[in-house]
C-alpha cells in the first residue's frame, strides 16, 4: 500500500497532473455555476478532451477535478441564485439562499467551501482505508460473482429510486441494457439489432448517449423556460470570513456528515442527493429546539450538513468504481465509460496492475479539495461574472459544445443525428420524470454483465453456477431483496 501511495504521490504531483486537477476544478466550477448544467453534463462534454489526452491517470484526474469543481460551482449557484444545477445541491439552497438574501452571501460561500473541503478530504481518507480492503476481497471474485454483483448494483438503483419511481428506474436500466446489446459483442462475433445500418455496427457510442441524455435536455430546458437561467440580485459577495464561534458550531456537523455521506455514497444508486437530504434531515432532528427553528431561514448548520454530505458521498461513489468496476451513479458511470475508452478496466486488479491510476486519483482528490478551498473560493466573485453572460450567447454555445463533443469522439456526422434524436427522446422522458442515470449505468454495465454471464454459463454448462457458487447465490438473493424492498416499504406504509 505504501509503495502504491508513493507512486500515486509522484504521479499526482507531476506538473501535467497538477495542471489537470487545477484546470478541471476551475472548468468545473465555472460551468457548474451555470444553472441547469449539472456535473454529468459537464463531464460528458469534457470526455472527448480527456480521452484525447491518452493518459488514463491524467484523464481521470481531469474528470474528477471537473466533478468536484462542478459540485462546488453548483452550490454557488444554489446559494447566490436559489437555482441548484443538480439535485445534490438542492438542500444547500434551503439555508444558503436565505443567508445570501440576508446579505451573508460571502459567509455562506465560505461555509459551503469549508464543508465541501472537509467532506471531500475526510471522504478521501475513508476511501484510502476502505478501497484497498474491498479490492482484496473482490480479488476472490470470479465472473459468476461479478455477474451477481452487477445485478446487485443495478437492483440497488431501483431500491433507492424515489417513491413511485421504482418501475421507471428498473425500466430505464433495462432500456440501457438493451441498448448495450446493439452492435457486435465481445464474445459473439456477430452483429445484433443493427437493422442493417453500418453506423450501428459497433453499437451506440457512450459519449453520444451521455451527451444526449444529460447535456442536450438541460440545454433544451433552458430554452423552454428562461426562468431557469434567470439572474438574481442577491449575489453580492463581500465578506468571506466566518467567526470562531461559527466554525466551532459547524465542526461536529461536518464530522458526522462526512462519515454518513461517505457510506451513503458507497451504496450504488444512493449518491449525493440522498446523502444531502438525509444529512440535512438528521442535523435538523438532532439540533436543539431553538436551532431547529433556524433551519430553512439561514442556519449555518443547515448549510454545512448537505454540503459536507454531498461531497463525502461524491468521494464514496468512487469506492465501487475503483474497487469493483461498478458505477454507483450517473457520474461514475461516465467516468467508467471514459476509462474503458482508454483501455483501463477498473476493478480489484486496478490497485495492483495500475497503481499510478488508483492512487493518483485518490491523491488528486486531496489536491482538488485544497484547490477548491484556497484557489476557487477567493476567485468566486470573479468566476460569478459568468452568470452575467446573456442566454442568447450561452445556450448556442452549450448546444455547440454538446454537438462537438459527440463529433470529436466519433468523427462521424451520423453520430450527431443520433445525438439529436436520442436527446429529443430523453427530453420527453425527462418531462415524465423518467430517471436518466439508470439508463446510462445499464448501458455501461450491459456488455460487462453479458460477458460475465456468458463466461459463467460456459464454465458451468448452464445456470448451475448459481447453485455451485454460494457467494453468487447470496448476491443474487440480495439483488432480489433490493428489488422487492421498495414494494415492501409501500406495503408497510399501507
Amino acid at each position, binding site marked *: 500500500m505504501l509503495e502504491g501511495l508513493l507512486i500515486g504521490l509522484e504521479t499526482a504531483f507531476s506538473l501535467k497532473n497538477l495542471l489537470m486537477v487545477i484546470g478541471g476544478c476551475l472548468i468545473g466550477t465555472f460551468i457548474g455555476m451555470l444553472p441547469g448544467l449539472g456535473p454529468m453534463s459537464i463531464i460528458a462534454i469534457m470526455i*472527448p478532451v480527456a480521452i*484525447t489526452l491518452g493518459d488514463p491517470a491524467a484523464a481521470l484526474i481531469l474528470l474528477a477535478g471537473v466533478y468536484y469543481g462542478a459540485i462546488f460551482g453548483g452550490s454557488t449557484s444554489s446559494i447566490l441564485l436559489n437555482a*441548484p444545477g*443538480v*439535485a445534490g445541491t*438542492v438542500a444547500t439552497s434551503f439555508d444558503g439562499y436565505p443567508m445570501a438574501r440576508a446579505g451573508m452571501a460571502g459567509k455562506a460561500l465560505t461555509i459551503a467551501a469549508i464543508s465541501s473541503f472537509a467532506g471531500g478530504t475526510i471522504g478521501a481518507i475513508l476511501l484510502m482505508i476502505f478501497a484497498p480492503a474491498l479490492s482484496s476481497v473482490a480479488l476472490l471474485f470470479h465472473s459468476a460473482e461479478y455477474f451477481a454483483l452487477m445485478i446487485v448494483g443495478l437492483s440497488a438503483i431501483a431500491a433507492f429510486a*424515489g417513491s*413511485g*419511481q*421504482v*418501475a*421507471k428506474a428498473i*425500466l430505464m436500466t*433495462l*432500456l440501457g*441494457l*438493451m441498448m448495450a*446489446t446493439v452492435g457486435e459483442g465481445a464474445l*459473439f462475433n*456477430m452483429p*445484433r*439489432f443493427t437493422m442493417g445500418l453500418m453506423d450501428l455496427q459497433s453499437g451506440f457510442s457512450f459519449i453520444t448517449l451521455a451527451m444526449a441524455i444529460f447535456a442536450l435536455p438541460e440545454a*433544451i*430546458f433552458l*430554452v*423552454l*423556460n*428562461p426562468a431557469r437561467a434567470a439572474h438574481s440580485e442577491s449575489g453580492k459577495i463581500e465578506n468571506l470570513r466566518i467567526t470562531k464561534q461559527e466554525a466551532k458550531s459547524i465542526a461536529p456537523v461536518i464530522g458526522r456528515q462526512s462519515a454518513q455521506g461517505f457510506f451513503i455514497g458507497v451504496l450504488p444508486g444512493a449518491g449525493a442527493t440522498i446523502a444531502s437530504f438525509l444529512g440535512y434531515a438528521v442535523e435538523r432532528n438532532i439540533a436543539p429546539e431553538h436551532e431547529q427553528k433556524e433551519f430553512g431561514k439561514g442556519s449555518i448548520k443547515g448549510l454545512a450538513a448537505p454540503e459536507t454530505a454531498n461531497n463525502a458521498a461524491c468521494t464514496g461513489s468512487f469506492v465501487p468504481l475503483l474497487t469493483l468496476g461498478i458505477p454507483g451513479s450517473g457520474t461514475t458511470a461516465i467516468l467508467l465509460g471514459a476509462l474503458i475508452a482508454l483501455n483501463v478496466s477498473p476493478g480489484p486488479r486496478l490497485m495492483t496492475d495500475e497503481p499510478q491510476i488508483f492512487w493518483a486519483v485518490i491523491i488528486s482528490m486531496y489536491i482538488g479539495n485544497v484547490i477548491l478551498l484556497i484557489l476557487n473560493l477567493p476567485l468566486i466573485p470573479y468566476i460569478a461574472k459568468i452568470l452575467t453572460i*446573456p442566454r*442568447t*450567447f450561452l*445556450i*448556442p*454555445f452549450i*448546444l*455547440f459544445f454538446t*454537438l*462537438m463533443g459527440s*463529433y*470529436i469522439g466519433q*468523427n462521424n*456526422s*451520423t453520430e*450527431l*443525428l443520433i*445525438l439529436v434524436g436520442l*436527446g*429529443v427522446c430523453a427530453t420527453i*422522458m*425527462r*418531462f*415524465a*420524470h*423518467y*430517471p436518466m442515470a439508470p439508463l446510462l449505468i445499464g448501458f455501461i454495465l450491459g456488455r460487462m454483465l453479458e460477458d460475465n*454471464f*456468458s463466461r459463467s*454459463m*460456459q464454465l458451468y454448462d*448452464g445456470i448451475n453456477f448459481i447453485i455451485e457458487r454460494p457467494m453468487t447465490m447470496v448476491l443474487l438473493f440480495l439483488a432480489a431483496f433490493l428489488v422487492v424492498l421498495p414494494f415492501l416499504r409501500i406495503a408497510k406504509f399501507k
Partner: protein
Amino acid sequence: MSLDRWIALVILSIALIYSYAAFFTMDQLLPPFMQRNPIWPSTFPKILGVLSILVSSVIVLGLEKTKDNKDGIEIDPRRLFDYNLGQALFLVVLMAVYAISLRPLGFFISTITFLTVSGYVLGERKIFILFFITAIASFIIWYLVEQVLGIYLRPLPSIF
C-alpha cells in the same frame, strides 16, 4: 392517459419488437457449432426483452402509483405551449441541419451559421457582435481541436 404511461407504451412496443427479433430471427444465423453452446447470442436479449415487457406493462397498466416528482425540472408538459416551444423546436431542427452540413460546408461556415442563427432565434439582435464573437470562437475552437487535440476538422467546403 398520462405522459409517463404513453412513454411506457412506446417502450413496450420497442421491447416487443426487440423480443421478436431475439426469439425468432437472431438464432437463424447461428452457425451449427455454436448451437451446442449453453449460451447463444440471443440468450441475454431474450431475458432483457421479457423483463422489459413485464416492467413497461406495470407502468402502462398503472400498477405502481406515481408521485408528482418535480425532479427540479419545473416544466409542466401539459402547458408546453406556455414555454418557448417554437424556439426549442427550431434549435433542434437547426442542430440536425448542422449535423448534415458539417462535412459538405466545412467547420467554419456551418459553425458560424449555427451559432449566429441560434443566437438570433433566442432573441439576440446585435447581429454584428454576435457574428464577430461566433467567428472568433469558431476559429479558437477549430485551432484547439485541430492543432492541440490533433483531430481533423475540415475547415472549408470540400470544393476548396
